[in-house]
């Protein structure tokens, strides 16, 4: 019996195979499908979640190793009162998505960046976002939206 702390609450995974990647436990067992499957080999970043605040690829983590760790997914990024994270607001307003499939992972990487660096430079963004592929090519808007979110944060926005 494995249980994990996900988005601030304890979730039982039943008698799951401990080798199951977190990605599939989130999606199939818990129905948290915002975390996406893209490659399964940590190349695309579509499955990015936070493990104790650090962005990681959920396809590479086995649930058996995660007891007692804090996991945050895209579903847990907004605050509990429902207020969107400044990045989510910026993504919507700046109309970042095309197909949108990678964007949850992009936002998770960007959220970790903003948590550590509230005024990232383009270079900082390049480094932090290097692990996230966008096949549609929304990189221009991703960078712009991160800057917009950083400004919102500076003006008291929610992160």
């Amino acid at each position, binding site marked *: 019996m494995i249980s994990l702390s996900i988005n601030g609450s304890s979730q039982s995974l039943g008698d799951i*195979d401990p*080798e*199951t*990647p977190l990605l*599939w*436990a989130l*999606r*199939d*067992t818990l*129905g948290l*499908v*915002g*975390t*996406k*499957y*893209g*490659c*399964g*080999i940590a*190349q*695309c970043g*579509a499955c990015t979640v936070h493990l104790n605040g650090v962005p990681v690829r959920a396809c590479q983590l086995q649930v058996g190793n995660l007891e007692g760790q804090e996991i945050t*997914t*895209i*579903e847990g*990024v*907004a605050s509990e009162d429902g207020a*969107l994270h400044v*990045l*989510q607001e910026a*993504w*919507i*307003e700046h*109309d*970042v*998505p*095309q*197909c*949108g*499939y*990678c*964007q*949850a992972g992009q*936002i998770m990487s960007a959220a970790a960046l903003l948590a550590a660096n509230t005024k990232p430079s383009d270079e900082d*963004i*390049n*480094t932090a976002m*290097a692990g*996230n*592929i*966008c*096949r*549609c*090519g*929304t*990189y*221009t*808007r*991703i*960078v712009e939206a991160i800057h917009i979110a950083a400004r919102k944060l500076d003006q008291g926005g929610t992160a």
Partner: protein
Amino acid sequence: MNNLQNGYNDPLDAFEPKQARQLSRREFIKLSGMGAGLALAVVSVPFSKSATAATDGVEYNLFIQINSDGVIRIYSPNPEVGQGIKTALPMVVAEELDANWSDVVIENSPIADEYGRQVAGGSRSVPTRWDELRAAGAGVRAMLIEAAAGEWSVPSSEVTTNQSMLIHAFSDRRISYGEVANLAGELSPPMVDSLTFKNPEEYRLLGTRITGTDNMALVTGKPIFGIDLQLPNMLYASYTKCPTIGGRVVKANLDEIKALPGVITAFVLEGTVGVTSFDPRGVSVAPGVAIVAESTWQSFKARDSLKIGWDTSEASSDSWSDYVEAAEELRGKEGAAVLLEQGTAAQVINDAATKVSSQYGFGFVSHAQLEPQSCVAHWRENMMEIWSTSQTQSEVRGSVAALLDMPKENVIAHQYRGGGGFGRRLDNDYVREAALIAQRVDAPVKLQWSREDDMAFDFFRVGGFYNMQASVDENGKLNAWNSHAICLSADGEKPNSGAGLRPMDFPREMLEHFKHTQTLLPSKTPTGPWRAPSSNSYAFVEQSFVHEMAVVAQRDHLEFLIESLGEPKWFKEGDSASLNTARAINVIKTVAERAGWGTKQQPVGRALGLSFYFCHAGYVAEVADVSVDKDKKITVHKVWMAVDVGPVLNLSAAENQCQGGVIDGISTLMGLEITMTKGRVDQSNFDEYPLLRISSRPKIDVHFVKSEYSPTGLGEPAFPPLAAAVCNAIYSVTGDRIRDLPIRKAGYTI
């Protein structure tokens, strides 16, 4: 002679309307359910549109429902795969309805024959829907006006609308759409020829920036993609096919697999053929072994224990290196099959003092849409229900019905957002696999392809080669052109899907001497449409070669390109698929001006490159600002685009498509290539297929020229010009003419 049609194969043409769309009244009635004979134009479809649809709403036609509380529900008919169509098409309806956009709720429409062509392909959604969606909106607006006029006992001509409100200015009365929704629903729908449409100057929505309707769901991780669907008691399936494309299953250790944790069952599908060929309406299914389990992971993990004996006697034995060798033997030669000849091109070039002969090549590429294929299917009492991300939704029911030999009425299809398409989801191969698997399982089942499945079993963008020869006269003017397409062909009669020369007008219509020949090389590797079929590779060839000619003619590229287009004219007046050189020259001049072409000295190691391409009714010119260092590392600093696709519907989404087209262009140009060895695809995942990363993005300046023509699609024309623009710039910096894609093969990195 002109047999150019034999040299081009775009299966999507079969999905095109037979003629240009001037919506007839009969068609309108059929499509929109609005006709004199239909009192209350509620369209009957074989299943509920939406569980969440309000029950008090009036469905006026296939696209519009208005509730008494003022909510305007618009059904978006075509598949959304990132091109923004789910937002753009309802904008057209809402514009002519004169709806307040904040009252509008957008839902996917059902998949039903009444909706006609429910396809995302060929950049055809906008042009094929334009007339009917405007009529749908204007028609309901007219009904609302009539209802309000009746309510107020005033002539309809005195009632105006503004943002979901009906207004009688003389008496200063106002009433909302919602308040007369039911009354309007009792009226006879108007005739199409009686409708009044807005002048473009009156548009409030079209041409503005409207954010994507699904943005909130996307950024909060809501279930919205095909892969996200979960049904009660759903099972999960993997499907393992022969790594050598076209191999058949001889034996498999099914009993061992069935004993593995979580595995419900495992079985062989004989399949219908070995090698599948692109056909969205087809019934082909490749042989393989299905494993049905309690979770995706268990269905994947069980594959590690799978032992399958394959019969590869009829499988593909294609090797990319064989094609490279074959092309090398044909270098400098014409093809035996002459598809078009006017004048004496070969002779003129032979006699010319200034001429060029070059061979170009480009590899296979994968669609690599980020959401790997998945499909949910549920078999119940001779009914098959399908939830898919198909780009050809209107073909799903027929394809599955034909495969299962059952009436189309017994197949229900639902459309889900696709995580990227680029043409991969045009074929319904994975849908048919899911249907066959579901037929043998007593529960809904989700077939999930791995990334490795997706990369190995694509309908690839076909690789190929062109021998190009041309000459200029004593004035440095292009005077003869002789091209030879070396194409792969599955049937030995015509090029594979996406191969061959797209029968455009440039430059044959401008030249007295033009010849095009073709050689077909036998191939079994499945290919299909990939963003801007044929144009996605030929634009690189054509526009690089035009630059080569400008260079040997010692002419400015911009001047040479414009001159080669000849006098401004529309080759087939009224046909948007035909080149209009006035529009072409306009975007070329515009992009040159915005990029400062010829006005400034570039630093050492840095240059501008120019390119233009016309396809899918869209005109796109690009200038790329590129530097190359001594280690062949390139930097694309900035790309300027000038675009004419008629009036832009949604400026935000259109700009996004253009930016994406540039990124996709650089990604493909730099590093993307699929090769195969004796029938097996050599690449399996993104570590071997390096899509562009964020740090390599250029600045992108997108400019839409003001255009009086009808709106056309943008997803495809945004892609083709980039490769030549960058390669022409690289030539200008280094003198190295790149004639083979991707360019990492020549040692370039980004």
